[in-house]
């Protein structure tokens, strides 16, 4: 227990709660307050929904292919040339303009593939629909072969991965497999709740959006959260409501972070 008396809960604490900006102790105090105060609970729910709506509205922008003119390596080269040859560069820009108009398709080819977090989210939903929803053949390797599964997935992803533990949150690890996505192999881990509802956590390396904040995603009855940390993308998906899935996704992210620093 903390020795200092409880600081009064203020409006800004509710916002900080929504933004995950509180330390663990303060978060618990604010959580207690919300649990006892219906008005605060309504506000928090509204602000959290607002935050999710903002994220989902703008999420797809970050997943669009990056146009060639925003290619950083090109811009660096142009910057160097411009400093050296200002007027020749101006001529080159004019030329590029002309080419850009007629050669748009070719230039497009140099832009980055769309493999960001929104794509990852879609892949995770698709994998969930195929595997997690399959009553009998959801996993290739069961929980008793976890070590084997971990080395299989790590080898395919060419980086060490760990199976997130959701036991404390009421979900038992039920095994997993390697799945294919449009952007390379991914690990799919399946979890089962007491009522047999299933969740899946998918992870794959990210070529773009290598560090990306968590976003909510949903389509039809399947939805969840997706984010990327240090080049590894994660998506937790299930059929539960967002309020149920969000803390689980936070927990997976927390474990991944702890794992990285340990």
């Amino acid at each position, binding site marked *: 227990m903390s020795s200092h008396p409880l600081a009064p809960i203020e*409006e*800004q604490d509710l*916002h*900080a709660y929504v*933004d995950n*900006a509180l330390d663990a102790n303060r978060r618990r105090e604010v959580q207690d307050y919300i649990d006892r105060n219906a008005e605060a609970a309504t506000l928090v729910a*509204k*602000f959290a929904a*607002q*935050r999710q*709506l*903002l*994220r*989902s*509205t*703008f*999420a*797809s*922008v*970050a*997943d*669009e292919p*990056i*146009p060639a*003119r*925003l290619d*950083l*390596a090109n*811009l*660096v080269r142009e*910057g160097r040339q411009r400093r050296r040859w200002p007027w020749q560069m101006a001529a080159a820009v004019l030329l590029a303009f002309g080419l850009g108009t007629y050669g748009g398709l070719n230039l497009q080819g140099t832009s980055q593939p769309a493999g*960001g977090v*929104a794509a990852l989210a879609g892949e995770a939903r698709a994998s969930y629909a195929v595997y997690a929803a399959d009553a009998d053949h959801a996993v290739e390797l069961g929980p008793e072969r976890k070590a084997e599964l971990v080395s299989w997935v790590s080898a395919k992803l060419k980086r060490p991965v760990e199976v997130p533990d959701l036991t404390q949150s009421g979900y038992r690890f039920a095994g997993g497999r390697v799945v294919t996505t449009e952007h390379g192999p991914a690990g799919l881990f399946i979890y089962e709740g007491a009522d047999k509802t299933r969740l899946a956590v998918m992870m794959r390396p990210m070529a*773009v*959006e*290598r*560090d*990306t*904040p*968590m976003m909510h995603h949903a*389509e039809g009855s399947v939805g969840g959260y997706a984010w990327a940390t240090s080049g590894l993308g994660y998506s937790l998906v299930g059929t539960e409501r967002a309020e149920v899935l969000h803390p689980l996704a936070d927990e997976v992210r927390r474990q991944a972070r702890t794992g990285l620093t340990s």
Partner: protein
Amino acid sequence: MALIDEVQPLIPALRRYARAMLRDRDSADDLVQDCLERVISHWDERRQTEDTRQWVFAIAHNLGVNKLRQETRRGIHVAIEDVDESAMVEPAPQEHRIRHNELMRALDTLPQDQRSVILLISVEDLSYAEAAQALGVPIGTITSRLARGRERLQRALDGELGREERPMGTPMLRRLK
């Protein structure tokens, strides 16, 4: 190259922030390009202690604010109805699209400083301290803008604000009920 390694991964988020600020895809990408050119030319002058993401967002934000100011001065205002919504958001079921459109209309009712704080914190996941640095204001200003902005946005989403209160970038009077 450190510049490319550190800045390249930020481009998708920069485009998102610019698009949320300016709406128009081409103007937003123009802004990102300006921003990247500045990042390249000032890369060696940045403070080593400064977080790259925060620094880059600060540049993008200042460019965006200037651009909005110029447009307001010139009287350019793109009504939300004129914006190609399909260019804004991913194809979504009808009810999602309506919700997204509502959100963008609601965002337009916010003063620009509140809108930016909300976007940087809710969408780009800057911490309060990072947002304060990027916008060059104290943290207390961030928390109060965030609170006022979210309340206002909520009222707009709940349909409590009149359409006459919509113009972007102009200070807003609080409607008393």
